[in-house]
């Protein structure tokens, strides 16, 4: 169960990046998770739930994009999606392949952060105060 340390790491990176960008809070953290990354999506989601409580990013949501395993198939001489895990076989011809091209990802891809709105460039009419 190393998902908790990964969740904590995610929160650290997100908080740091948010600050760097002048944001006030992190709304969503986008992650790419390869099927061979060694991290279980459900476990990461529940670890994240636990980790964000009480942190500066208590409101942040986690969105995970699954990355399927892609292998280079020597028979087809092309890149193919692996048929089924854990067996790494070409999805097209079934030849076993150890050359993994994608599926190891464990990546924070993007953040949705709240940043202060730019001040209106035109005078706000009286009586129409923004809440």
């Amino acid at each position, binding site marked *: 169960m190393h998902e908790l340390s990964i969740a904590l790491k995610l929160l650290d990176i997100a908080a740091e990046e948010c600050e760097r960008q002048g944001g006030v809070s992190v709304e969503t953290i986008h992650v790419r998770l390869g099927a061979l990354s*060694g991290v279980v999506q459900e476990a990461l989601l529940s670890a994240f739930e636990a980790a964000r409580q009480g942190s500066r990013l208590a409101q942040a949501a986690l969105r995970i994009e699954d990355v399927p395993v892609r292998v280079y198939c020597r028979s087809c001489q092309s890149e193919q999606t692996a048929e089924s895990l854990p067996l790494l076989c070409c999805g097209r011809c079934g030849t076993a392949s150890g050359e993994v091209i994608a599926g190891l990802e464990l990546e924070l891809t993007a953040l949705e952060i709240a940043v202060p709105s730019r001040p209106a460039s035109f005078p706000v009419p009286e009586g129409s105060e923004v809440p």
Partner: protein
Amino acid sequence: MNSETRLVEVRTRILKDNDVTARELRQRFRESGVYVVSVVSSPGAGKTLFLEKTLTALRQRYRVAALVGDLATENDARRLAQADVPVRQITTGTVCHLEAKMVQAALGDWNLGNLDFLFIENVGNLVCPATYDLGEASRVVLFSVTEGEDKPRKYPTIFHTADLAVITKMDLAEAVEFDADQARASVQAVRPDMPMLELSAKTGQGMATWLEWLDRRSGRGGNPPPR
């Protein structure tokens, strides 16, 4: 305060810190001329006895040392110290795997230039260690005949990150009706072309082949150390 949502592209490896430390370690190992091998397996697969015999065999010819990771106790370090080589224990507390920073801390200012081989025994776990690079030159994954032939199919990721699969406790193979062909097929299914060997640290079966693999892989050359 009014705010708006902005999408910021980050694109970073979540474990970038670990990767950076692992890279530093790998460079330090290379510059010191020490060949580093990490050993992973589930708990009870026989890592410690395997290393004990390996260290004993290698120290006839090489300068060897070991780092041992465990959640608690220093029992393994004490056992390995019987091979009469320098051993340091890393106790991880509640952490189920070693990270590059733990290795770095345990090494401290150890003069690695005095070593030919350094072995790192990871915490018994076939899941989490797969994700953490320790800067090692080779990773060896062990699984024992008592664990079932399909272990590799259950834990493909660790087999993916390893360079050699070793089936241990071969002396028990007959008693547990271990099917070696099926085990070999399991390994090849999740990692085609993966080198593998069968071994019993207790009887010495396969030890020579393992030491030859190590010699070849590390480029240390020379004859395999006497058994």
